[in-house]
């Protein structure tokens, strides 16, 4: 067995936005106001070929709403037949039983549905779409019925941080095996609505302490967090593959035109996968290099947690200050 973790030969995951089009206008959405030309399916398949050649094992379709794109099934089938592990995140509006069966048939390994509140009215208001809660839950049931693994994604914000246990119960009741309690990002509409939605640093700390306590007492459901700032808590015991943000180290994001950004929440293009050599982008991009070697600045300087959290979420620091190296504004230290 080996112990050391160094630079990876390629990302483990590509988060892939095939389209920014969406049938919802959620209050926190990072991409609702984005516009970008979409690739034809032949070019999309060329990208799949590049990812296979680079031995990227996982792709996750996000958006925009992936099911808006009619050729999603053909794209996913091509990718899964070429050996990629395919998943996606959807709002569930278009996910009836027939669609769930098709997703399973074309090789999806799992499908995540976003649900922000166990109260239908609150979820619908946040998503600005009456009936969206009912359809999201119907989507979970459809996935369960056809035997396709489902996950539930909930972006933690002011509307739900006190009621996350109800979200876990909702997941339990609909055959979900894993719940992602995502950290709130300050990008796109999330930045515009930050005052209304984001928690204060001490509220984040209290939330994570409580959620970690629940996680440690929970055996029937996998509870996952993706917030690097949580690593500064002694109560957080998980061994992560890399320290700090995973974007640029384990994962990258593809925009609908093939442009690569470190993650969906950092609108800095580091290259185009169809126009440039991928390995040159991955190994030599100055932006990616800077994200992998963050420097402690401000209150991170001299902080004992920096080795573990690496300054927290790089996207959030960049969105609020324009500098990757600034401390995560969620940090309570």
């Amino acid at each position, binding site marked *: 067995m080996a*112990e050391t973790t160094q630079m990876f*030969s390629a990302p483990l995951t590509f988060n892939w936005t095939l389209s920014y089009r969406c049938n919802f206008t959620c209050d926190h959405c990072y991409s609702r106001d984005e516009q970008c030309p979409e690739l034809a399916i032949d070019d999309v398949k060329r990208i799949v070929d590049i990812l296979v050649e680079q031995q990227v094992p996982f792709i996750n379709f996000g958006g925009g709403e992936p099911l808006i794109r009619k050729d999603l099934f053909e794209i996913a089938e091509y990718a899964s037949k070429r050996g990629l592990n395919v998943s996606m995140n959807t709002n569930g509006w278009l996910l009836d039983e027939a669609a769930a069966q098709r997703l399973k048939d074309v090789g999806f390994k799992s499908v995540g549905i976003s649900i922000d509140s166990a109260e239908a009215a609150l979820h619908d208001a946040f998503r600005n779409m009456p009936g969206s809660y009912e359809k999201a839950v119907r989507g979970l049931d459809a996935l369960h019925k056809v035997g396709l693994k489902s996950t539930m994604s909930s972006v933690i914000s002011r509307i739900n941080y006190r009621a996350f246990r109800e979200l876990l119960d909702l997941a339990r009741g609909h055959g979900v095996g894993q719940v992602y309690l995502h950290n709130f990002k300050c990008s796109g509409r999330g930045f515009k609505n930050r005052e209304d939605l984001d928690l204060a640093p001490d509220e984040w700390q209290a939330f994570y302490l409580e959620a970690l306590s629940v996680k440690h007492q929970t055996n029937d459901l996998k509870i996952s967090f993706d917030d690097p700032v949580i690593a500064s808590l002694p109560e957080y015991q998980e061994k992560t593959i890399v320290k700090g943000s995973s974007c640029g180290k384990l994962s990258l994001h593809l925009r609908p035109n093939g442009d690569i950004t470190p993650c969906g929440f950092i609108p800095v293009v580091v290259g185009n996968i169809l126009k440039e050599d991928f390995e040159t982008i991955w190994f030599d991009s100055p932006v990616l290099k800077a994200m992998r070697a963050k420097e402690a600045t401000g209150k991170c300087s001299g902080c004992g947690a920096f080795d573990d959290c690496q300054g927290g979420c790089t996207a959030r620091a960049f969105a609020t200050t324009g500098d990757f190296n600034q401390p995560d504004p969620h940090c309570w230290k």
Partner: protein
Amino acid sequence: MNKPLRNPEIVWRVEKRRQAEVLKALEEGNDVDDSGTVILLQSGMMHQLNLVGGLIWQQCDGQQSLADIAGELAKEFSVEQAEVEADVAEFVADLAERGWLING
């Protein structure tokens, strides 16, 4: 376990660039035991195998016996097969106990 097979639930890949660096370091006489060249991903966790472990792992296709694998390894490192047989058996047993290898 005579013909070990990689658990199909595990996603894995050879870290090509890192493997090349490790081979170079080995040629230069450096200790590379702790340097991962193959990564295994299971349920959100990553594990790494070093050069020797990675080579054994790649041979575990359910077709080759422990003796076959030891033979390949001996050829790769220019040593007698008998010198590596016990190590191969021990490594395979360890991975089988973790559920990473199954009977082929």
